[in-house]
């Protein structure tokens, strides 16, 4: 194994082992923080698939997390208060909720992606954001699900052999999911399919001249990414047990983008490193001052102005 692979594996393992140790030594707070971190890292990893490798800058990824979370919250809500029994959607079973989260986000990605991918550049950035805003306003306007005020998830998803009310088990599920997400993205980008996606990022015209219908390839990648973010959202809903449209706000999408850029686009571990630094910084700075967005924003600007290639890029000695 190269030094870089060794470091990567070490980082992921540390991310899985240290938080439970904190928990057992009486620092339950750090486990909470790590769970949120790992869930956001899954979403950032999914975003990296299209943003980093595919060059599709989606500014609406938070909407997928939100949809995923509501796919947990809405069945749980109906299970408690009635309604939708005929559809089988009044349930707390994770075996229904999580596939639902993945299916809903995949379909949403397919429908919106089909339109978004007709556009390029800044149009793409803005239309993905517009679709996210549509979902945001849709949820805000549905009073049954709390509208602006959000929805409390009274019962976490029930999974066979797992108790998500146990913070350690929830963290474990999130961490295993993150590892799976990283492996899936790696597998996808190293496949022939992934080569086409990366080729289309570099020179779309050339790929089309070679006979690839890049539109379809990009759309499939977009759907995979959306469904993964939906899955992350389902976990996030189980973690926070409170969901609101605020989690789909465009600034949330911006934060996900920041995590990917901060860590390093189109790198396996970049999004995870980015999410880690983001969450830790947010925690430290908001502890120090009420006005933590000020240093945070300055840092963001500095990263964009001076930190090309992200943190992983620094590690690689900028050889990319």
């Amino acid at each position: 194994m190269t030094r870089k692979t060794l470091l990567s594996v070490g980082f992921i393992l540390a991310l899985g082992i240290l938080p439970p140790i904190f928990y057992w030594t009486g620092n339950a707070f750090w486990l909470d923080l790590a769970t949120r971190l790992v869930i956001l890292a899954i979403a950032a990893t999914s975003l990296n698939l299209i943003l980093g490798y595919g060059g599709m800058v989606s500014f609406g990824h938070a909407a997928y997390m939100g949809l995923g979370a509501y796919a947990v919250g809405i069945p749980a809500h109906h299970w408690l208060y009635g309604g939708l029994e005929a559809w089988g959607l009044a349930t707390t079973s994770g075996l229904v909720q999580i596939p639902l989260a993945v299916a809903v986000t995949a379909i949403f990605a397919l429908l919106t992606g089909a339109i978004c991918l007709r556009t390029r550049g800044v149009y793409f950035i803005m239309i993905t954001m517009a679709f996210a805003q549509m979902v945001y306003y849709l949820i805000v306007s549905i009073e049954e699900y709390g509208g602006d005020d959000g929805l409390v998830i009274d019962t976490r998803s029930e999974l066979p052999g797992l108790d998500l009310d146990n913070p350690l088990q929830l963290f474990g599920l999130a961490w295993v999911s993150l590892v799976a997400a990283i492996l899936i993205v790696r597998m996808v980008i190293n496949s022939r399919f992934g080569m086409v996606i990366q080729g289309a990022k570099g020179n779309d015209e050339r790929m089309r001249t070679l006979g690839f219908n890049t539109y379809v390839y990009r759309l499939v990648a977009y759907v995979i990414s959306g469904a993964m973010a939906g899955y992350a959202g389902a976990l996030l809903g189980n973690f926070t047990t409170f969901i609101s449209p605020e989690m789909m706000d465009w600034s949330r999408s911006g934060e996900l983008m920041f995590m990917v850029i901060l860590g390093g686009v189109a790198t396996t571990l970049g999004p995870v490193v980015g999410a880690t630094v983001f969450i830790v910084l947010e925690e430290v700075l908001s502890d120090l001052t009420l006005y933590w967005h000020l240093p945070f924003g300055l840092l963001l600007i500095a990263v964009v102005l001076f930190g090309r290639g992200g943190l992983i890029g620094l590690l690689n000695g900028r050889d990319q």
Partner: protein
Amino acid sequence: MDTTLLVIQALNGVQLGLLLFLVASGLTLVFGILDFVNLAHGSLYMLGAFICATLTFALGNFLWAVLVALPITAGLGFLVERFIARPLYTRDHLDHVLGTFGLILVLDTAAHLIWGPEGIAVPLPEWLDGQTNLTAEIVVPTYRLLIIGAGLAAAGGLFWLVNHTRLGMLIRAGASNRTMVSALGINIELLFGLVFALGAALAGLAGMLIAPITEANIGMGNNIIITAFVVIIVGGIGSIKGAFIAALLIGLIDTMGRAFLDDIFKIFMSNEAAETSAPAISAMLIYIIMATVLAVKPQGLFPPKVR
């Protein structure tokens, strides 16, 4: 629905459309000429409102405050161009979005530090604070008419500036070929700075005009910037004419949708269904329009001829 309500809502729609145009025109100028995506444009709108609020109390008069605040916001725009935008021109749009996203956080927090978390209400002079009878039945607040007048004047001024002055000629030339313009001996950096300052002043003006109605508050910029982006995307990025038409269209559709969509829905569905679905659809309406436009014309309604 009766005619009086229709006229009043139409005026509200025009007013919203003109404010959107003031914000969107700066955005589309900056994008069309500098190829720069400025998410923080909404923060300049917010700063315009706050600066105007402070000056209104300092000078005792809203209109004087607007006149003094305009060059200040223009100056702020000039500084943003010099220190944030200029180093990013050679980068891709992703870096623009992230850098200016950071700038939003900085400016919003700075406003929080300077002006506090509460909104600031801006008092109007007495002669503006009343109502005007357009006809015997249609009564509108005088100030809303002033907004419409000021918006139209600013739009007219901008068209004149861009189409009939030397500066405007340089701006248009810079939009189609910036290397050529600078090869002809024009100080392109100064030109870019001026374009940015102009955009900032227009956004600031919109913020100042809306402040007496909604108060100056911290989130205001982030609410309007997204709608302004919808406007320039629908209109075709870089086109001032497109921005104007799209802004009025979006302003009218948004206002009318919120006011009358439930009545329209009641024609072909049950009252209950109409009352639940209308607010959802009307809130999403402008995004649905944007998606439809882009699905049919990926470059917007009025794509600029060059580029």
